[in-house]
């Protein structure tokens, strides 16, 4: 069993970036007292994701951190070193019900898409982007993306986590256009107010 599941495939140029952003995250979260499963590279397969997120087995009980490709209708992992959908409109209920979800991926929070569907079917919260977004291979970008996860791990409310991430993006807008660009497409969907990963989970 794990409190938090990390998914971060590595099968193309873009996921070289998103996988790198997740480097060190497991150790950090474990240092804060959370148990963590890190499905990296080939481990980010549909079968393993389903095994670790399936509602009945409850192997992941608090949160999902998803750093990978996304689209309006799916979040992607990999199979045989090729992109493969791992969370879809069809399995979103089983895989995300009663979890807090944080994504760095394109378009999963578009209107009528995966994040909205997941929330309607029981996911507690989904932080994602409404359109394609950018990533950077810099410590500054990594720290920006980590800010939400760090606040979540510290037991802050989802609204406070969102505020930390927005603040992190805003403080970096002089470093590249990508910070304001991503910020303009960032969206938090949620079922309730003032939830934390400790108050609203599968336990």
């Amino acid at each position, binding site marked *: 069993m794990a409190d938090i599941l990390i998914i971060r495939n590595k099968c*193309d140029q873009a996921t070289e970036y998103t996988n790198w952003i997740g480097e060190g995250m497991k150790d950090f979260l474990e240092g804060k007292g959370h148990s963590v499963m890190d499905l990296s590279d080939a481990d980010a397969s549909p079968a393993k994701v389903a095994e670790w997120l399936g509602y009945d087995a409850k192997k992941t009980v608090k949160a999902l951190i998803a750093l990978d490709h996304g689209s309006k209708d799916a979040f992607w992992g990999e199979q045989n070193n090729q992109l493969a959908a791992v969370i879809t409109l069809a399995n979103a209920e089983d895989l995300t019900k009663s979890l807090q979800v944080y994504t760095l991926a394109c*378009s999963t929070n578009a209107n009528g898409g995966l994040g909205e569907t997941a929330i309607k079917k029981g996911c507690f919260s989904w932080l994602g982007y409404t359109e*394609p*977004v*950018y990533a950077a291979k*810099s410590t500054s970008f990594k720290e920006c993306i980590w800010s939400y996860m760090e606040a979540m791990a510290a037991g802050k409310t989802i609204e406070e986590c969102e505020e930390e991430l927005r603040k992190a993006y805003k403080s970096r807008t002089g470093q*590249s256009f*990508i910070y*304001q660009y991503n910020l*303009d497409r960032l969206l938090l969907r949620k079922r309730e107010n003032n939830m934390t990963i400790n108050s609203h989970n599968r336990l």
Partner: protein
Amino acid sequence: MTDQEQVLKRLKNWVNEHPEDADVHQINITTQKEFTLRGILDKLHKEQEKQLVILDEGEQEIVGHIDKWLGGGTNG
């Protein structure tokens, strides 16, 4: 001054003031178009010198974002 000359001038000034940020590798996660802002500046320079279209479609999109960013507008 044309729009492209203006964005080139603004980006050149920004690169001079932010040399480390200018070399950070960045990527559009969906299109996988990878770039540095210094690399975009170099291509803009070449386009101006040779009067040729050197920037590909993905780079032209990035130039549009840079124009809005350094021009003080909002990214749309």
